[in-house]
C-alpha cells in the first residue's frame, strides 16, 4: 500500500484514502461542441499508458475529497511529486511523449 502526499491536507496518508482518477492534463476544450473528430478522439480515448513517468490525477476521496495531480513512476510506483489541480504541468524533462489534443 502506497503512502500518498495530499497537497491540500499537506501530509502523507495511506492509499486506502485515495482513488486514482486517470491521466492528468487532458484539456477539455472550451469550445468542445465544435471540436474536430481527431481532437475529440484524442481527448476522449487516447491515453499514454507509459512505462515510466506518468502524470495522473488522484482524489483524496476519503479525506478532503479534493482532486490533485501527481507524477509517478509506473515501474517503481514511486511518486516524484504531487501538485494541486489547475497548476501547470511541471517540466521534468521526462520520458512522456506529447500527443495531439493535449497540452
Amino acid at each position, binding site marked *: *500500500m*502506497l*503512502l500518498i502526499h495530499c497537497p491540500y491536507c499537506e501530509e502523507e496518508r495511506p492509499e486506502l484514502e485515495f*482513488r486514482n*482518477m486517470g491521466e492528468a492534463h487532458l484539456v*477539455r476544450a472550451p469550445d*468542445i*461542441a*465544435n*471540436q474536430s*473528430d481527431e481532437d*475529440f478522439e484524442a*481527448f*476522449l480515448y487516447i491515453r499514454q499508458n507509459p512505462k515510466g513517468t506518468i502524470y495522473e*490525477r488522484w*482524489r483524496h*476521496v476519503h479525506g478532503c*475529497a*479534493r*482532486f490533485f495531480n501527481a507524477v509517478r513512476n509506473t515501474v*517503481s*510506483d514511486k511518486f516524484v511529486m504531487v501538485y494541486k*489541480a*489547475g497548476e501547470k504541468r511541471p517540466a521534468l524533462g521526462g520520458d512522456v511523449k506529447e500527443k495531439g489534443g493535449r497540452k
Partner: protein
Amino acid sequence: MSGAYRIPGKGRLTPAKTLRFTFDGETLTGLEGDTLASALLANGIHLTGRSFKYHRPRGIVAAGPEEPNALMQISRDAVRTQPNVRATVQELYDGLTAKSQNRWPSLTMDIGAVNNLASPLFAAGFYYKTFMWPKFAWKRIYEPNIRAAAGLGHAPTEADPDHYANRFAHCDVLVIGGGLAGLSAALSAAESGADVILVEQNSVFGGALLYESGITVDGKPGYDWAQDAIAKLKAMANVRVLSRTMAFGYYAQNMVALNELITEHVARPDASSPRERLWQVRAKKVILATGSIERHMVFAENDRPGVMLSGAARHYLNHHGVAVGRKIGVYTAHDGAYTAAFDLERAGCDIPAIIDLRKDVADALLDEAKSLGIEVLTAYSVVKAGGRLRVSSMEARPVNGGAVRKFSIDALITSAGWTPTVHLFSQSRGKLIFDEQRGIFVPGENAQYCVSVGACNGTDDLERLVAEAVAAGGGKAKLKVKGPSYAGGMSGASPGEDDKPVKAFIDFQNDVTAKDIRLAVREGMHSIVHVKRFTTNGMATDQGKLSNMHGLAIAAETLGKAIPQVGLTTFRAPYTPVTFGSIVNHAKGQLFDPTRRTPMHETSAKMGAVFEDVGHWKRAWYFPRAGETMHEAVDRECVNVRTNAGLFDASTLGKIEVAGPDAAKFLNILYTNSWDKLGVGKCRYGIMLREDGFVYDDGVVGRIAEDRFHVTTTTGGAPRVMSHMEDYLQTEFPDLNVWLTSTTEQWAVIAVQGPKAREMIAPFVTGMDISNEAFPHMSVKECQFMGVPCRLFRMTFAGELGFEVNVPADYGQAVWDAIYVHGAPMGLQPYGTEAMHILRAEKGYIIVGQDTDGTVTPQDAGLAWAIAKSKPDFVGIRGLKRVDLVASGRKQLVGLKTKDPKTVLEEGAQIVESPNQPIPMKMIGHVTSSYWSANCDRSIAMALVAGGRERMGQTLYVPMPDRTIEVEVCDAVFFDKEGGRINA
C-alpha cells in the same frame, strides 16, 4: 521419559515439564519448548509423511520454517483442523493431535507408492504430455482423478470459529530476525532512541545461537547473551518485541506485513483471544537480519527418512537435547557439518565417517575429527543412501572413481552450504548480485530504505557481522564476539548422480529430481522461469527454500552457462504460507461489506417486508400478506396503487444539495437539460451524460431557491454522480461558485402514490396548500409535516398523483407510521421495489442501468426532448455528435407485447427478425424490462431494438431454448397514455 533419543544434560528444556501428544493415533511424550518435530525425533520418529507425487516415505529435514517434508494435519477438534503445518514450526502443547498426510491406508503402508514404481511415466512435464487423448477424457476421467489424488492435507469443512486480529503500526526501525545480527541491530537502534519493532519467527530469540555452541558475545555464551539482550530490549519503552511472528511480505514504501501466531502453541486457548494477528507495519527503515538457510546434498535416494540438514541436527541436539540417530553419517561440502558431527560425537552418538566432497579441508577440522576418532574421507561423494522407511546405509566413492565403501547408519546429515535468505530484500525490489566465489546471491542495489545485515547479507565473519548490524541500527556500541568461521559450499548435484534412473531430489516437496531439471533443459526450457514451471521446482508451499539454488546450478551446468546468465526466479510474498483466517481477518460475516438500512427499515420489517439487496442497501421488495405468494402480493400492491394509494420507501435514492450563486450554471453543464428557466418551487427530470454522449444517470431536480437545488440520483449511481460532479467542479470549472453536499442519508423519503394520495397526507401538512392548482405536478416546497421540517415534492415514478415526503432521517419512521395509520382505512398499502418497477414500466419510465447499459444515448432511450437545444455546452454535447451516435439503425427503446398476453418474456432475451434462419441468428436487440402487469392484465416489456421506433406494429421473435415467442413492437407506455392521472 520424553523419548529414547533425548540426551540427559543436553539442550535447554526442562525434563520434568512433560507434555502428551498423539501422532497418527499413538500417544507420545515431549517436553515444554519442543516443536512437534523435536518431540517426534526424541521418540525416534523420522518418518512423518509421504511425498506429493511419488508417495515416497519422507522424514524431517530441517528445524525451521524451510521444512519441505514434515507437513502435518494438526487438529484441536473437528472444526479446528489445519493441513500442511510444518512440524518444525508447530510448538508442542499438551493434547496436540498430529496426523501425517498423503498416505492411505497408513504411513508405513501407502497404496499411492505405486506411483514411485511407475515413476518413469511421471517425469517432468508429464501432465502436459500424458493426458491429451482422447479429447473427452480430460474432463470426465483425468481431471477428476487428478484432483482427487492431488493435495496433501484436508481443508476443514466447517467455518472457522476463531477470530483474527489486525493492527497497523509505524516505527522508525523495523528489525526482522532475532539472531545475533538482528539483536545487535535492534540494541543499537534502541539505544540511539529510535522507535523499534523487532520481529522473530521463532518463540525463542537467538537464531543460529540456538545451535551454534561455539560463539561467545561479550564473554557470554551466545545463547545466554541473546536472552539477556532480549530482556533488555523488552524493558525499553521505545521497543516492541514480537516473537512467533513471521515477516512474510515486503511492499512499497517500506510496508511490511507480519503474521503473529498467538494461540497456536497454547493447550487451551482463551476463547476471547485472537488466534493470529496480521500486522501492517510502516517503517522508516527496515533492517533485514533474516539469516541463511542450509542446502542439502543432492545424491541418489537423498530423501530417505533420517537424511537431514546438519544445522538442523545440531539444533535438535543443542537446543532440544535430542539426537537425530545413534549412528550418524555425514556428507558435506561445507565446514559447518563438521561442528555438527563433533557436537553429536561428544554427546555420545557414533559418527562412522564424514564424507567430504572437497579435496582440501582445513587442518584444524581434520585434526579435531582425528582426536574424536572420526574418519574423514575427502574428495569422496555419497552415491547412494539405503533403506526405505528409514535410512540404513550410505555408500561413498572417491570423486574420481574407485571402490565404493558402505557405512551402516540410522541418520545422515548433509550440508552443501548456506543460502542467504534474501527473500524479503528481493520482494522489496532490491537487486541481487551473484557472488561468483561463494556461489551465492547477495543483496545489491536497494530499491527501498532497508539494510541487510549478517548472514542474509552474505556476511559470515562474526566481527564484521556485528559491526554492520550495529552500524545499521545507527548506534556505536561495541560488542566483542568470538566464534568459528566456516568455509565451503556448492550448488547442484554431487558427482555420481547422473542420468541413470536414480532419484536425487532437489525439491522434496514437489518431488523434483536433478534429472528432471536436465530433462527440462533438453526439452527446450532455457530460461529458469520455464524450467521452474516445467518441473514445478520451487513451486511447492516451501517455495524452493532448499531447492532453488540447486535447480539453478544444474540448469546452468546443463546449458553450459554461468548461473547469473540463467537468472533467478522472482521471490514473492508470502515468505511462508499465511492462513486465510489471518488475511481475511475481520472482513467476514457482517463486517464483510457494509449494509445500509433506511430509516424505515425496522417498521417495514414489522409490516412483513421481504428485502432485496440493492448495492449495499436493503430495500423492501414486497409486503406479502399471510398466505400470499410473491406474485400475488406484487399484483395486489400494483393494483392498489392505481386504485387507492401506496406507500413506498424511496430513501435510498441518491440526493445531492447543489448550492451557490452559480448552481444553475453548474447544472447546465452537468445535465443535458436547461435549468435557467426552472422557477423556484419547480422540478424537472434531468439526464446526465458522460463526455462520450451516453446516458450516465437520471433523476428529478427541484429548485428550492434561486441558488439552491435538490438533486436526486439513482440509488446505485449516487456515489459516482457525486464524484462526477466534484470532478467537473474542481478541475474543469473551478471558477463556479458552487458547493456540493451529499444528503442521501440526511433525508428519509416516503413516497405516497395513487389517486387518493392527497387525502393520505393532507392532515399532516402545514404551511402550504397542496391542491392541484396550488401545487401541481413537478412542484417542490418546504413546509412542516407533522411539525417536522419537510421538503414536499409533487412527483411520481408510478404515473399517479404522487407526493414524496422528505423529512430528516430520524423522523422517517414516525412519519411513515403516522401516514400509514391514517391512510390504511382508506386503502393505503405499502409497496416494495418489485411493484415500483412494474408501475414505472407500465408508464414507460426507464431505469438507468437496466434499460440503458452505457451504450445508450438519450435519443436511443426516447428522451431527446430532455436535451436543451440552445446550450453552448454540457457534458456529452460533443459526444452526441459522433458519427456512430447519430447514425440510423441504432438500437432504440420500444415496448414489446407478446402475442399471447399471458407469456412473460425473460429479461435479457435476444430478439430476431425471423425465427427461420440458421443459427447463429442475427440478433437485433434484447429485452431490458419485462413483467406481468396486473393493471394491464397482460405481460409488458421494454426492449432495445435496432431501428425500434421504425418498427411499430412489426412482429419480431424471441427464441428461447424450448420455444420461440412472438412479440409485437409497440409504444413503451402501456398505461394511461394521455398521462391524465399524474395531474389529478
